[in-house]
């Protein structure tokens, strides 16, 4: 049994972000011969290495100053200096990045000072560039840590200010494959670049004969020093980032710059090439134009499939912005756009394309949120009916829970291989990303459309007679279920008998007046008589003889089967079982006493149980019952609701654990539970119930709810249809009487009821010959168009000598 966890205000549940050192470490991997040391406790480095190892499938060595209690109390300078010496000995680096952690920042480590003193004490290491970066885990997300490193390079590195013809390119944390693509484009335009950083090879290396402890890719530190003299800087970044290395280079060294979005999608890529064309003075080459035309062709090919997409897009704002634009230009509607980082301006960056999409397709329900965790994203995914997710593999849990396909991009991807090679930039990258999204949507359609259409147009309709059960229900149970008219449409070929042996009830529903039996199961007017167990057996025997297709004997009150008359119920079941070993027993209850009797019911051979549970929220449930009598006390309001819900659920769980087929009846009460019903259905589904039956309230005069407006047939039908997406719905409920006999199409209770009255059988037969009276439930007076529980007046017809004749209307005292 699984507890549903809901999102909380004061507690992050399933983080949609990582911390600064993660991003800082990634950025430092783009500098040649650079080793990173994390100033803090050992775990930070290890966790980051573990994450990077699974995503990039590369050895990523990150040292740690391994601070202990001692270092934390007295300062970690000694540790850090020793650590620097050791990484130099082991890795022979040209650059060492020192990143701080929560711990180092909180104890107030002065890494700049430590660096200076280290050089003083160890002049032999003067040639090694040490780059200190403040990256406390609590200070921001991985993107902020990544940008902090880039900015530290721009800001703190000793620069060579001599002018050169190079162009600085500040790169986002895209996949190494995308970075390789960008490098190639700069080559095509013959633009001489300095990439900050260049993770293309270090985080996606090849297999070489000789292993190098520090990978040999990345931008050399001497190149980075030339950034101050470059002619221009292109910064591909999230515009909301407070930190901009390009701006820093401009302010310190007057290098002009342009900040732009990642070239993902048609428009952003066009802009990117336009800029490169200007910078290089070259026309856009033919091969790029061809790539563009191919992307456009691909966009056209898939546009109709894409239009079905309602996407959840999550991650860092930089990634989100790129993905939203790409989706929006392809007709995929982003309905949930969430970032884990604090980014109050997110709306400003992503809303325009979303709103534009919405206008085209008349979609105005979407959400854009920052500082969001995955639990909230999961709830949004349901609320906004999304059918595709786009982001890193931390969304896999939602994928598993909600069966919404996840197209994996960004970092980390640790449940699939090849995260380092996923593309989304440029025309080719956009196309491969788009194809993956389209295919994810298509695979859902291809795998479900047959069933969906069957459910929409066949299941539960008048032509549906041969519905096959697909669930993993044991064969014997399946047979019983198929032959059970209350569980299966096809069941109408089989007859059932409801035996009124249990008049007592232990709850007072607000829609019920005791003298008219229980409307839960059967707003049935009046049952003729209450039977003793012996009489019930007799009745069963007689009917069985008349109706050989009688397969089901049920107890449906007229009170509650498990209230005061449980001993009679038990006896009845035992007697009938003795007489007919093949009989299917079903039973209905309000669930209050179910946990106490569930196991016994299993032993008695009850295979089907219906519980009327119109709410799973105690406060709502509390509104349904005027009071309940439980264990010698009377409870009202929420206390009553809490007991009801908890007993209904635990009773159901016991039954389900024994493989009993459970149906849940849900009475729709306008203004009370109609909004809540999908939750009830969801709860039933989560537990493993077989079917739910969403019913109309039948208002009863004199009950507390007599003034409650009735829910229309249409509303009920639409509720059932929407809940049908959650689990199997009963579309054919006839709200039987407690003493119903026969098939659903053909209620013979009056007929047989008379027939069953042992003393008068012959006499009644005589009478039958003479005349019969029918009460017709009709509103229009033309058609049988009302449930007999709802009518205010009956049309009475007399049948005599083969001719029916209307003899008058009769008012019903409700």
């Amino acid at each position, binding site marked *: *049994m*699984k*507890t549903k*966890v*809901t999102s*909380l*205000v*004061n*507690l*992050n*549940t*399933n*983080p949609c972000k*990582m911390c600064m*050192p993660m991003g800082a470490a990634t950025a430092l991997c783009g500098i040649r011969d650079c080793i990173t*040391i994390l100033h803090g*406790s*050992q*775990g*930070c*480095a*290890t*966790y980051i290495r*573990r994450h990077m*190892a699974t995503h990039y*499938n590369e*050895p*990523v*060595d*990150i*040292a*740690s*100053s*391994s601070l*202990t209690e001692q*270092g*934390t109390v007295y300062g970690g300078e000694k*540790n*850090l200096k*020793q*650590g620097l*010496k*050791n990484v*130099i*000995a*082991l*890795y*022979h680096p040209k650059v060492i990045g020192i990143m701080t952690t*929560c*711990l180092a920042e*909180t104890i107030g480590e002065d890494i700049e000072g430590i660096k200076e003193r280290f050089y003083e004490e160890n002049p032999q290491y003067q*040639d*090694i560039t040490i780059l200190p970066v403040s990256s406390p*885990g*609590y200070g921001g*997300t991985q993107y902020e840590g990544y940008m902090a490193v880039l900015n530290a390079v721009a800001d703190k590195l000793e620069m060579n200010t001599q002018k050169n013809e190079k162009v600085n390119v500040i790169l986002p944390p895209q996949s190494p494959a995308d970075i390789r693509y960008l490098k190639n484009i700069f080559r095509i335009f013959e633009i001489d670049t300095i990439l900050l950083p260049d993770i293309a090879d270090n985080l996606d290396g090849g*297999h070489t*004969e000789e*292993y190098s*402890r520090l990978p040999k890719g990345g931008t050399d530190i001497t190149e980075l020093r030339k950034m101050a003299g470059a002619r221009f800087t292109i910064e591909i970044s999230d515009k909301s980032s407070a930190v901009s290395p390009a701006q820093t280079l401009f302010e310190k060294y007057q290098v002009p710059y342009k900040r732009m979005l990642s070239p993902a999608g048609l428009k952003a890529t066009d802009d990117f090439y336009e800029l490169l064309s200007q910078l290089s003075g070259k026309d856009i080459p033919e091969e790029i134009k061809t790539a563009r035309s191919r992307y456009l062709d691909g966009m056209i090919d898939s546009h109709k499939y894409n239009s079905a997409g309602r996407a959840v897009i999550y991650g860092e704002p930089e990634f989100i912005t790129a993905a939203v634009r790409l989706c929006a230009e392809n007709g995929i509607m982003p309905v949930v756009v969430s970032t884990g980082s604090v980014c109050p301006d997110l709306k400003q960056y992503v809303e325009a394309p979303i709103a534009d999409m919405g206008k085209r397709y008349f979609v105005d329900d979407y959400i854009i949120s920052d500082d969001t965790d995955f639990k909230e994203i999961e709830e949004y995914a349901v609320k906004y009916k999304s059918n595709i997710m786009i982001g890193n593999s931390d969304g896999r849990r939602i994928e598993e829970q909600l069966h919404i396909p996840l197209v994996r991009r960004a970092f980390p991807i640790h449940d699939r291989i090849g995260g380092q090679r996923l593309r989304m930039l440029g025309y080719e990258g956009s196309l491969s990303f788009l194809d993956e999204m389209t295919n994810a949507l298509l695979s859902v359609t291809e795998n479900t459309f047959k069933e969906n259409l069957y459910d929409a147009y066949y299941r539960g309709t008048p032509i549906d007679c041969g519905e096959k059960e697909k669930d993993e229900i044991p064969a014997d149970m399946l047979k019983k279920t198929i032959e059970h008219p209350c569980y299966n449409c096809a069941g109408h070929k089989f007859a059932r008998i409801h035996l009124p042996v249990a008049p007592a009830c232990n709850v007072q529903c607000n829609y019920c007046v005791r003298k008219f039996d229980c409307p839960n199961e059967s707003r049935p007017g009046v049952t003729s008589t209450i039977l003793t167990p012996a009489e019930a057996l007799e009745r069963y025997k007689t009917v069985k003889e008349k109706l050989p297709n009688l397969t089901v004997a049920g107890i449906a009150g007229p009170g509650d089967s498990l209230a005061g008359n449980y001993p009679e119920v038990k006896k009845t079941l035992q007697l009938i079982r003795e007489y007919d070993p093949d009989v299917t027993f079903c039973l209905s209850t309000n669930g209050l006493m179910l946990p106490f009797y569930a196991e016994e019911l299993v032993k008695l051979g009850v295979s089907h149980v219906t519980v009327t549970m119109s709410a799973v929220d105690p406060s709502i449930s509390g509104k349904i019952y005027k009071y309940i009598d439980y264990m010698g006390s009377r409870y009202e309001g929420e206390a009553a609701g809490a007991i009801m819900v908890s007993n209904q659920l635990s009773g159901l769980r016991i039954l389900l654990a024994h493989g009993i087929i459970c149906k849940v009846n849900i009475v729709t009460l306008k203004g009370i539970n109609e909004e809540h019903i999908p939750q009830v259905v969801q709860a039933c589904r989560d537990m493993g119930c077989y079917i739910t039956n969403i019913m109309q309230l039948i208002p009863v005069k004199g009950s507390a709810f007599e003034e409650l407006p009735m829910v229309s047939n249409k509303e009920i039908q639409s509720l059932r249809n929407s809940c049908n997406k959650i689990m199997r719905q009963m579309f054919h409920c006839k709200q039987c009487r407690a003493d119903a006999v026969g098939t659903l199409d053909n209620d013979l209770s009056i007929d047989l009821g008379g027939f069953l009255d042992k003393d008068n059988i012959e006499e009644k037969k005589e009478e039958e010959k003479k005349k019969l009276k029918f009460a017709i439930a009709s509103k229009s007076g033309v058609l049988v168009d009302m449930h007999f529980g709802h009518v205010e007046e009956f049309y009475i017809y007399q049948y005599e000598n083969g001719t029916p004749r209307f003899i008058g209307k009769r008012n019903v005292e409700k």
Partner: protein
Amino acid sequence: MADIEQVNILDEREKSIVTKHGERCSGDGMRCNTDSVSGAVSQRACVYCGARVVLNPITDAYHIIHGPIGCSSYTWDIRGSLTSGEDIYRNSFCTDLRERDIIFGGAEKLTKAIEELAEAQKPKLIFVYSTCIVGVIGDDVDSVCRHMSEKYKIPVIPVKSPGFSGNKSTGYRMACDAIMQLLLPHKSGKKIQGINILGDYNLAGEMWIIKNYLKKIGVPVIASFTGDANYDEMARSTSAALNVVQCAGSSTYLADRMEEEFGIPYIKVSFFGVEDTTNSLLRIAEALGNEEAREKALKFCGSETKKLEGFLAKYRKNLEGKKAAIYVGGGFKAISLIRQFDLMGIKTVLVGTQTGKKEDYELIENLVDEDTVILDDANPAELETFMKEKGADILTGGVKERPLAYKLGIAFCDHNHERKHALAGFEGVYNFTKEINESINNPVWEYVKGACV
């Protein structure tokens, strides 16, 4: 820079690397169970990680990380502990401390978080993990937990796991203390037939495999720590007749404390490998004085062993003469692995652990050859150096070691917490042998020219 020599082994690390014909593991021979060397690139995690490893598999507990988001993010649902019931433990709850909280303290945030959780979710059990910064900013987590525990009448248990307060082993101990805090109120005088299993985390269903064996031989299991564990079951554990300890490194301390407090004796067992599995089942039956169970175990293990005979003989032909390197978390696992490799005809040329103890290394020493390299708290440079030097064909280790092995052209077996195939019991022998063969004899190595193998 020419005067700076790149080294493979740091001076400070030399005492943690031994061979039998060099310095032995006994006496001063093996420096282990100490703090990691700064800048050495240890493969170890931290105290918090150790605590989380042990406690997180408790399925119906709410695990709240009091700290910054990274600690929560990097440990969220990454381990392969399976559940047969609740799956609350697969969520990662975090107070997400930010700059402001570092300055003003996070106790209030934690209180609010627990209050909200208690009211919304009606939890049975909450653990609150302290991380590095909490240890420094001085939040009184104990008193918040005590207060919340009284207010909501549920156990809210602090786990003292600031990362810097020791190593992963310290974390194991802190977790065991937390478990004890949970168990103490349930101290019971009477004993019932049945055992507890300690130190198995139900990775890939291994706890289920073990429980099924015990069921077959008629030994009831009362509670498991902590694979597929739940609160009610654990609360009953105090009246068990025997504790069996599978992962000694993480759980011996818990077994000691349970013996002290509840008078439950314990034995160490291992369900890795045919021999260990057989011996463990027999020993459990013997420790309980249950002759019938012993007979059943003999019969059961005999028939299972027989089933595997042909299989093992077939694979041995394919594997004989290969060389293995082992780098795992604890000593007990390393020992099991050496013996399993032995049965396949594979010689262990390098063996190391993150948190092995002196006695583990002494045992290891007895199992390996004269020139096998034994190391404690190794780093990638050392693994690289010795795997090359010894010509290892396969490395058995954790996720972080995998890319290194591959880059060196060496096969790899995942013996970590993230794996999705069982390695325990007779099923495990089958999986393990197949995995070793599938990696070592994969055609890819044919194409790796000049590989270090």
